[in-house]
């Protein structure tokens, strides 16, 4: 049986842990609100952009002159997987869920005989991906220094991808990120961005006949690279909100567990203290009787 002093120290230490997890939870809650706001504010842009681009793609897409970003390279051999995770841990299954999805896809593609290349965004994903799929790893984007993800960051990633695409380093590009549903639910998602696919957009743009200035093709060629950046930006924002949401619920659980542990330890502490008292009483009484 542990002595009273040990128990007391143990309770103190768990109390300190609870303070930390509680603080982290509150910080995550505040950050989540901010992340959700920025995700919300970028939504009008993304929606309009995709509507216009979808309409354009629908009208130009069929022709032979369609840009490669839209029609693809005609091959399906080299896949680039962009796996976006967080820079920091302690956020439940967030990082490992995304990495798991990415890894499963990579293994599936390898089994089909395709070449797989991997770019990671975020330190946590890089570490776990490098361990299993190190030989496929070709690059990493570091956002450790970035306090608040901006469109610039997305543009930088997109530029890097487009340079690789122009250099014919890959045929298909898919991004992996976590879609934010609510604080307890984040869905790891895979989304193909090159060649561009528009399933849900298109009706709005296609229904009107537009004049184009300069030409339809020129605008489309101008917009497609931006579309890549826009999709990456949207994914980064979703990821940011998911990370904070996931951290919030993970820390909430940790705080609750610490509370339960404290209760248990306190009961044990009180019992042993009572046992000591009872023991002393017995000793006194039996001493008195012996006289």
């Amino acid at each position: 049986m542990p002595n009273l002093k040990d128990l007391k120290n143990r309770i103190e230490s768990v109390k300190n842990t609870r303070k930390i997890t509680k603080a982290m939870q509150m910080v995550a809650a505040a950050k989540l609100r901010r992340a959700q706001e920025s995700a919300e504010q970028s939504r009008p842009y993304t929606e309009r952009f995709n509507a216009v681009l979808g309409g354009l793609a629908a009208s130009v897409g069929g022709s032979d002159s369609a840009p490669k970003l839209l029609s693809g390279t005609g091959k399906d051999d080299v896949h680039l997987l962009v796996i976006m995770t967080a820079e920091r841990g302690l956020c439940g299954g967030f990082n490992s869920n995304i990495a798991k999805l990415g890894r499963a896809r990579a293994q599936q593609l390898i089994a089909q005989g395709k070449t797989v290349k991997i770019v990671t965004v975020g330190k946590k994903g890089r570490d776990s991906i490098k361990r299993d799929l190190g030989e496929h790893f070709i690059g990493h984007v570091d956002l450790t220094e970035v306090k608040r993800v901006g469109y610039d960051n997305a543009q930088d990633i997109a530029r890097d991808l487009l340079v690789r695409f122009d250099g014919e380093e890959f045929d298909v590009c898919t991004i992996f990120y976590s879609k934010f549903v609510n604080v307890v639910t984040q869905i790891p998602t895979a989304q193909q961005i090159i060649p561009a696919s528009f399933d849900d957009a298109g009706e709005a743009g296609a229904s009107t006949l537009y004049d184009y200035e300069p030409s339809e093709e020129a605008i489309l060629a101008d917009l497609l690279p931006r579309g890549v950046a826009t999709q990456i930006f949207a994914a980064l924002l979703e990821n940011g909100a998911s990370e904070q949401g996931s951290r919030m619920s993970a820390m909430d659980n940790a705080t609750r567990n610490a509370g339960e542990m404290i209760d248990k330890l306190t009961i044990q502490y009180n019992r042993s203290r009572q046992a000591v008292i009872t023991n002393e009483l017995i000793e006194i009484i039996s001493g008195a009787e012996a006289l």
Partner: protein
Amino acid sequence: MANTLQFDLVSPERALASLQATAVQIPGADGDLTAMPGHSPLLTSLRPGVVTVQSDTGNKTYVVTGGFAEISAESISVIAETAHAGDDVKKTDLEDVLTNARTAADTAPAETKDAAEKFVADLVELMENME
């Protein structure tokens, strides 16, 4: 026909404006143009410049760098790469953009070099007019 049209200005980071306007001047890729209610549907890319919105409550200006505009009879949406409200935009905000554009223009391959250099020239002109 209504004498106003719905004007929306959105950038990736936020929606800057949504209001009823009587006329909107935008810096189209091939030259400035003014959209008024009943304009024929037009999709144009933008060069860096100033968007001027005329409405019943007065004129508003926004500085945009790149992007595109979707114009229809009842509405105009400016979907800008970066956008600032005209009153609080400072030269320093655009200097980063200009530096990036300059490097892009220097490294651009031959077929896009003209466009990149035009972008830089437009930016410089815009910044000179801002004082």
